[in-house]
């Protein structure tokens, strides 16, 4: 939420000297942002005009908007709020809809976007999460999903017990891509079954009561592809699988894997190319086996 902004680039020593060789042209980039001042308020479009520079990304556009704080028509406006942190697509912060497509803003390169549509770039907040302000949305449901499937290795504790289990290179190569999930929420935004859940604090309701009510609401909704994939990651780990049944119970409960409509949008939009549909297929098979086993164990 801290937004540092670079307005233009002088030639310093170290890496600032390695700025951009090509001089800026006088082209203008037109940007249309869907804004919303706070939860529960009406959203509205606002247009911005930004001088073109080579090698920009959507983050640098938002930085320019923050620095000038003027709309295209010259009005002073509050800077557009947005989330970002690492700017190298590894933290999962800056998810938004760029020209209608859910993606990370840091890797949305302006030159590419202009190739597709030279008229304008459109920025909208994710639609499956409550808007906090402008492009900032509340994604705590994503993390709640990880709690639901107990996405962790249930170790005894952090004291020394020697090394972890031996793992074959094949198993590591299978697990690693799943483990690069940065909880960005792209797969959820693209999923037809994942619908928005917005819970509003009631008058006089304590923070704890509100939190509990919100969690309960989340838990009735679809858990989502990212959490299913994490469940499969930990069910494949030699120690993680010691609570495999608990994860399968979660995945077969309310809002579980049966809600998946197999649209396969999730895997198409994942910025990390995580094989989400493979995880979902595995989870489906495991859940079936587990359900039958449970039936016979009764």
């Amino acid at each position: 939420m801290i937004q540092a902004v670079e307005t233009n680039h002088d030639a310093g020593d170290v890496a600032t000297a390695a700025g951009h060789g090509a001089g800026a042209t006088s082209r203008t980039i037109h940007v249309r942002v869907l804004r919303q001042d706070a939860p529960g308020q009406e959203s509205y479009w606002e247009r911005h005009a930004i001088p073109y520079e080579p090698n920009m990304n959507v983050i640098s556009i938002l930085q320019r908007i923050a620095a000038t704080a003027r709309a295209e028509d010259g009005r002073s406006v509050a800077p557009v709020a947005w989330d970002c942190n690492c700017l190298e697509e590894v933290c999962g912060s800056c998810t938004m809809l760029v020209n209608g497509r859910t993606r990370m803003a840091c890797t949305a390169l302006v030159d590419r976007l202009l190739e597709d549509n030279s008229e304008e770039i459109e920025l909208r907040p994710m639609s499956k999460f409550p808007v906090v302000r402008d492009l900032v949305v509340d994604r705590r449901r994503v993390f709640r999903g990880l709690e639901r499937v107990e996405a962790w290795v249930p170790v005894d504790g952090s004291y020394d017990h020697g090394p972890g289990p031996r793992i074959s290179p094949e198993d590591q190569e299978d697990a690693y891509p799943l483990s690069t999930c940065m909880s960005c929420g792209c797969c959820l935004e693209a999923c037809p079954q994942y619908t928005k859940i917005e819970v509003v604090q009631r008058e006089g309701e304590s923070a704890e009561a509100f939190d509990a009510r919100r969690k309960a609401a989340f838990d009735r909704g679809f858990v989502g592809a990212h959490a299913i994939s994490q469940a499969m990651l930990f069910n494949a780990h030699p120690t993680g699988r010691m609570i495999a049944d608990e994860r399968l119970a979660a995945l077969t409960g309310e809002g579980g894997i049966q809600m998946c409509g197999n649209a396969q949008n999730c895997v198409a939009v994942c910025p990390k190319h995580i094989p989400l549909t493979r995880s979902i297929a595995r989870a489906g098979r495991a859940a079936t086996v587990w359900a039958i086993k449970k039936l016979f164990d009764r």
Partner: protein
Amino acid sequence: MAQPRVLVIGGGLAGLAATMRLAESGTDVDLVSLVPVKRSHSACAQGGINSVNALTRQQGDNEWKHFDDTVYGGDFLQHQPPVKEMADWGPRIIDLMDRLGVPFNRTPEGFRDQRRFGGTLYKRTAFAGATTGQQLLYALDEQVRRYEVSGRVKKWEFWDFLEPVLDASGRCRGAVCQDLVTMQFRAFPADAVVLATGGCGLVYGRSTMSMVCTGSAVSRAYQAGAWYGNGEFIQVHPTAIPGADKLRLMSESARGEGGRVWVPRKPQDPRDPREIPEAERCYFLEERYPKYGNLVPRDIATREIFDICTTDGLSVEKDRLCVYLDLTHLSREMLDRKLGGILEIYEKFQGVDPRVVPMKIFPAVHYSMGGLWVDYQKSSSGGLEEGDPKNQQTSIPGLYAIGECDYQYHGANRLGANSLLSCIFSGLFCAPSVIASGAAVRKTSAEESSRLFDASLRRQEARHESLLARRGGNENPYDLHQQLGGLMTRVATVVRRNEQLAAAYDEVCGLEERWQRCSLSDTGNWTNQNVVFTKSLGDMFPIAKLILKGALLRDECRGAHYKPSTAMPGIAATDPVEQRREAEEWCDRFEANTRKWLKSTIAKHGADGHPQISYEDIDTSLIPPRPRLYGLVGGDVIEEVWRERQRAAGQAGETSPQPVAAGA
């Protein structure tokens, strides 16, 4: 007795490791972070984490050598007991992270694979693809989530630490923080407060650091009286990808896996790099440092890349400085398996496949070796006394600092893949110390506590309101930040000169003055990123000033701090007698310099807003300081003279098993 409660600020590797250990010990933890902790800057660490391991051990490696490489690479500017303790913990920490499920790369037999990193001759670095930091962070995030579910940990994500709250005796009793969504303030009473808030790269404008790395939390502690150590030591990473919004790291592991750095011998050779024959390429690191090659310590690699571009004029491009980092001779399968993550970053942002075309890279600000001064209690075996309340405690009792925001482990230059270790180590290790410290104050009454916090809350509310109410100012905080960053990058990175540093100090004071006249473009009280940034910018100036003043006063070259006017060139003579004489002189000068400058820089925030600089002796009781001779001309002669002197002084061989010269 009340239930112990600790406040941890920052949820990267260090903060999460501390939180996990504290929670496991039955302490309640409030964990405050600017971003959801899973999005912390630790995710950006790529290459790996160092520790002695079964394989290197059989090649003659041991914890002592890891310790020795770390202090030698850091030019001896660290107190040695904490570094020894960290190296000793290394194997246990890797084992722990392995148990937590980190998908470390594996050998065909299923053991953890290792690669070599800079500043060592052993393959000590365990790695998970090229996103090791992300993988370690996630493993700790998952464990902390378990404690969150059980109710032991309460996370406060999207919250900003504003000030530590001190009682009349000067002890830290908690902190005041602000909700970045609702902009509300809240007091967090705590038995102790742990800062794990990372580096201060944004003081340099663009760096390899994430946008939360403003240094503001540390600055706030410093302004409240905590001492700052070795501020002038800022690591400039040799290889980064220049960008308009940030400078993206290209991990040292690219060289660890065989990447070669070169420039065309013909300045700005217009040919496709793949068409340039071997003979017309200058592999300058390999030529100048035959022993370490492309894996010399970072400060040296950075200076060489900087020099070949600026002094020798051999930059690949004319308008922007860069050199080639070449992986194209390596197999695509290996590159994908071991470096996939970082090659993807290059490809995504540059639109060029680095498996096919050499990358263009240049140094960028990367890591703060300096940070909050912290204490330690030495043990009889030369390491640390575990659980002593002094360990990792700042000069403010009850306030702790761990991870990149402390100054303790990396001296004048950090070795690659040592930061992940120091973060997890200091996080785990501080927990019993923090608990011991907190036990002393747990009996505070509620009224006493509310009196204390009310004053802090009122002060922070007033600061906030006055920023929002500021009218008529014509300064733009984003412009000021850009000017600060440009200035710091020009004068306080690779090469430092006193006249520039002195002038820059005055300029920073001028910018700070102008900051007082910043006007906000957003005066609302809901998710106001404008006011949050403006506040953190205001807190960057004290850090910038202590960096500049520390650099100005330190008239020597040490690690990342390089002043050409004080450099000690190698041996020029060719005649053996003359060489010998020069080497004697060189050693005399080295000894004199060590006596004068082998000291930690301590900055204290003065009432006038200027840093007061003093120096503290360094505990070098375990490994006597020796010249850092990587690649120095005549290093072998100097080494010989140095060894003779050590023998004469009766201390050779006993405590220093490593050969003195590691260079050519």
